[in-house]
């Protein structure tokens, strides 16, 4: 083999990892990589207009494609701009690899121009990170980075690449195998624990499945459906788990937690066995910890041992891949004597149905003002629930979660853990790259959308026909909702009355802008957007003071919901 430069080795590694798309932004410390990119026609690069967007796009791409997303940025500010994207991917366990340029090794520590210790900065928000100081270790490091990003509990990995490493040359060796003595995730769940869990589940009168992002990440949806249907166990899920179970299945309870459905939160409060699968008992789900699932024995399946008994002490911990564990449960069931579960479960399912009758998820219809929930319902209806939906953060995110009934996994991309405003649009860009023929819609707010609005150029330039549905209520709606309900309506810094004309903004960037101000305009606008093969911004002027309901105020117990 002949000599290659570091830049050549890096791009060769990417191709060997199966990378086809890169989201990035050039700069002095990665100019050699960008130069080499001109000779790699198989690597398609998307020039974002802010590095944060590159990482969110890689994140959306990873979720929609089940592959590792890749972002490439320069040193210093290029690197620091990626931090929010990395932290979001870390909280949501999304496999991405972020490459940052770095000043030459001889200058590291000298406060050189555009130097920042990005490995130090991102240590607490990456699954792992590297500073490559020896070109002989370059190829192996990149291979290991991809391996760590996608295996076990996935997550973001950052590789910092000093300029002189990119410029140096060696005869490279490309590793095939990975051996990390200190990293060996457990995929296979302990069969004895699984048997114990099943015994407990079979004795339960009021069991409940509480599922999370782990279902989606491990592609366990089908095993989950089989198990839930076989034993007629109702299913609720976290925001991250939506789509892991068909939102139109009769056993579906809707999301639980702070803005969960009444029946889901009541079911948690009354169940006798709670089966947590790939979820992590986040505070937005549990509310007041001491009163979470007070009557339940808890089974917790998760690939990350540190998620187990972190917030809630569990009775039967099972470390392993969610799909593996559910598959074992399903297999064990085959050997159990058949019982009429539909009949046995009737009292519990009836109780739940009554809760649903008492307080269904709903909103008050208006003939004159557009209700934001109505927009989401229409989006669902007109896309037959098949669209890829990304969200921003706040009310838009919660209404999307409540009213878009996700049928399939990997259809919802949202910054669940970090709650990063500005996530949805660039993520939608990444989704559209991964799924070029799909309808991709960013459900946005008028606040969030401005955080990465510059990416309109990117989608126009690359013909990515992403649709943005702005639920424009002229407020930072979620914070205003808290002020409205909990702070005597003192709207401190939440009015967005001063705002751009979003239709003109779209047009200025070369996209299509549409507006709906009355309920009857909603459907035509959505239809036109869907039928326009270009990026479209839909400005829905919605009821300004609508609240997301139900709501469990922070720190309260699940059964202490505020209802509409």
């Amino acid at each position, binding site marked *: 083999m002949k000599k290659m430069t570091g830049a050549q080795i890096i791009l060769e590694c990417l191709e060997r990892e199966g990378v086809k798309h890169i989201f990035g932004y050039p700069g002095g410390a990665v100019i050699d990589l960008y130069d080499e990119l001109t000779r790699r026609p198989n690597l398609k690069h998307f020039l974002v207009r802010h590095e944060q967007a590159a990482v969110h796009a890689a994140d959306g791409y990873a979720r929609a494609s089940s592959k590792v997303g890749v972002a490439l940025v320069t040193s210093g500010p290029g690197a620091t701009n990626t931090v929010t994207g990395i932290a979001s991917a870390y909280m949501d366990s999304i496999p991405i690899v972020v490459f940052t340029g770095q000043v030459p090794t001889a200058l590291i520590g000298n406060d050189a121009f555009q130097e920042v210790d990005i490995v*130090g900065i991102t*240590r607490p928000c990456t699954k792992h990170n590297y*500073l490559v100081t020896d070109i002989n270790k370059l190829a192996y490091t990149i291979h290991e980075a991809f391996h760590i990003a996608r295996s076990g509990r996935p997550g973001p990995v950052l590789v910092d690449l000093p300029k002189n490493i990119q410029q140096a040359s060696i005869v490279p060796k490309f590793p095939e195998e990975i051996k990390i003595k*200190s*990293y060996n995730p457990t995929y296979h769940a302990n069969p004895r624990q699984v048997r114990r869990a099943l015994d407990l589940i079979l004795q339960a009168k009021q069991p409940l499945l509480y599922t999370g992002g782990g279902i989606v990440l491990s592609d366990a949806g089908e095993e989950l459906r089989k198990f839930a249907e076989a034993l007629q166990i109702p299913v609720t899920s976290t925001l991250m788990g939506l789509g892991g179970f068909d939102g139109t299945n009769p056993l579906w309870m809707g999301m639980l937690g702070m803005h969960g459905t009444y029946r889901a939160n009541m079911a948690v409060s009354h169940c006798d066995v709670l089966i947590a699968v790939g979820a992590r008992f986040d505070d937005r789900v549990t509310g007041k910890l001491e009163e979470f699932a007070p009557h339940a024995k808890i089974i917790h399946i998760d690939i*990350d*041992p*540190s998620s187990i*008994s972190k917030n809630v002490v569990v009775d039967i911990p099972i470390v392993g891949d969610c799909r593996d564990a559910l598959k074992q449960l399903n297999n064990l069931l085959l050997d159990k004597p058949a019982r009429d579960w539909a009949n046995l479960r009737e009292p519990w399912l009836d109780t739940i149905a009554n809760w649903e009758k008492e307080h269904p998820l709903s909103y008050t219809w208006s003939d004159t003002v557009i209700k934001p929930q109505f927009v989401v319902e229409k989006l669902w209806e007109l896309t037959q629930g098949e669209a890829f939906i990304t969200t921003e953060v706040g009310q838009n995110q919660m209404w999307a979660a409540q009213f878009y009934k996700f049928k399939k996994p990997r259809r919802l991309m949202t910054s669940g853990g970090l709650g990063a405003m500005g996530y949805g649009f660039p993520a939608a860009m990444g989704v559209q790259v991964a799924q070029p023929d799909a309808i991709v819609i960013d459900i946005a707010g008028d606040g969030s959308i401005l955080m990465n609005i510059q990416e309109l150029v990117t989608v126009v330039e690359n013909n990515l026909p992403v649709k943005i549905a702005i639920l424009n209520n002229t407020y930072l709606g979620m914070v205003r909702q808290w002020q409205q309900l909990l702070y005597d309506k003192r709207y401190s810094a939440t009015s967005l009355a001063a705002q751009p004309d979003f239709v003109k903004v779209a047009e200025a960037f070369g996209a299509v802008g549409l507006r709906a101000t009355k309920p009857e305009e909603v459907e035509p606008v959505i239809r036109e957007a869907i039928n326009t093969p270009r990026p479209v911004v839909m400005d829905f002027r919605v009821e300004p003071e609508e609240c997301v309901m139900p709501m469990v105020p922070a720190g309260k117990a699940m059964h202490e919901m505020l209802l509409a």
Partner: protein
Amino acid sequence: MEPRHTISVWVENIPGVLSRVTGLFSGRGFNIESLCVAETMDPEVSRITLVSTGDEQITEQIIKQLHKLINVIKVVDLSEMDHVEREMALVRVKAEDKSRAEVLRIADIFRCRVVDVSAATYTLEITGNHEKIRAVLDLLKVHGILEEVRTGTLAIQRAKKE
């Protein structure tokens, strides 16, 4: 007081690993009472001995979170097994007139070594477990401690006796 746990952590001996470990403690609000690090016989591996306080659930989290770090090879909670702990302190004590003999006597009783002498001071090397070191320092305090420097705790599991 919350129980003390002495935890041994084997890590890859590469730059930045210590920072990952300490960053984990500060980021998650765990306590570190003391910390010792050095290379092992295998130069690619370092061993960290750290002492932390916390209830059972916190200690379990500490161990799990340490395991989660890619560069961490092995974690053992020595408090759960029969083990020996040692710390070392170097102490410069005032030693003039009458107290000169008394300081030496204390040093002798606790098997300390005199590692430096001046006309007005002795510098003692004390080794022992946490409690012994505290006991010696308490006794020396009345004579006047001018300077003290201490290591963290080192710990090793006792060999199986059969």
